[in-house]
């Protein structure tokens, strides 16, 4: 049984694999110096997951036409404030978007 590994453009596949490795979540490095940041990262990742789910659900409802103009306005303002608050918190804890990534298995990455 002979093993075959053949690719049209190996470099392109290596590049995509490297992108994936970067997207994988790092271990939480909890030590006395950075325990606050480590915990903030964990909590903000979960908030980001919930925020994205809310946003997606809102988009589905807009698409289905099941929201009134007033509801769109209200939800839009809420989501906008939530996004701004998240930006603020990420700034405080010096976290980047990619720090809050989560691999959701078959659903792909959060960020």
């Amino acid at each position, binding site marked *: *049984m002979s*093993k*075959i*590994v053949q690719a049209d453009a190996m470099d392109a*596949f290596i590049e*995509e694999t490297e992108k994936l490795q970067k997207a994988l979540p790092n271990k939480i490095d909890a030590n006395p110096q950075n325990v606050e940041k480590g915990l903030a990262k964990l909590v903000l990742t979960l908030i980001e997951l919930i925020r994205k789910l809310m946003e997606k659900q809102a*988009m589905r409802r807009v698409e289905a036409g099941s929201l009134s103009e007033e509801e769109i306005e209200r939800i839009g*303002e809420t989501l906008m404030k939530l996004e701004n608050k998240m930006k603020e918190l990420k700034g405080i804890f010096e976290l980047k978007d990619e720090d809050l990534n989560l691999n959701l298995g*078959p659903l*792909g990455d959060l960020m």
Partner: protein
Amino acid sequence: MNIYIYGIIDFNEEMAEAITGLGGANIYNIPYRDIGALASDLDAPVRNTDEDRVLEHEMALEKIMKNFTILPMRFLTVFDKKDNVISMLNEHYSDFREDLDRLRDKVEFGIKTIWPGAIIRERIENAYRKAQDNLSSSTESPGKSFMKEKFGKYKIDKEFEEEADKCIAIIDDFLNRFVAEKRLEKLKTDNLLLDAAYLVDKEKQGDFKKAFEELKTSPGDLKYLFSGPWPPYNFVTKTNTRHDHE
């Protein structure tokens, strides 16, 4: 002395062929009922970054799969004594038995496909923006503007995924005839259209490879990475068989 486990086979006797595993250690069979766990003794701890050991693990599995159906164990599956290996076999026997029957004489092939994701996304974005430009725009509140922007992104992502689904369906159509099972993962990155594992009967692997060659000649700006045959890593029922690892 720890015991390193390579996989579970449908055989409960001594190995006829000498196969070496990690650090050149001899691989032997630990029998349990009508199955066995292939093992070698481990003198020193192995780190999970040790590339040479990963290759030794994989090469041992390749040799074993020539003659046996094997349920490959994850790299670094280590037990501290034989009794614990037997306990693990006892605990998961029915899962192993079922998997060995399902995966008998089957091998895995991997196919990764890259498409020009950036170009496709740009095309979709341009078409969407153009359609939006034609709509009258009145002064909107910040909440509505925010929703409009997010909705645009949502629609573009959705169309991008729909294009990916269509393209994957075409690829899968070529290969599906010779496949027992498959695991398809879409758009792990914007460019990595498909990361697929196909389970193929050993007897049908020639047909599968031929179908892939046909697929490669079909039109489209796609790049492929084909690999295999592998042990059926992606088709083993996940069980927590880890007892201890270094």
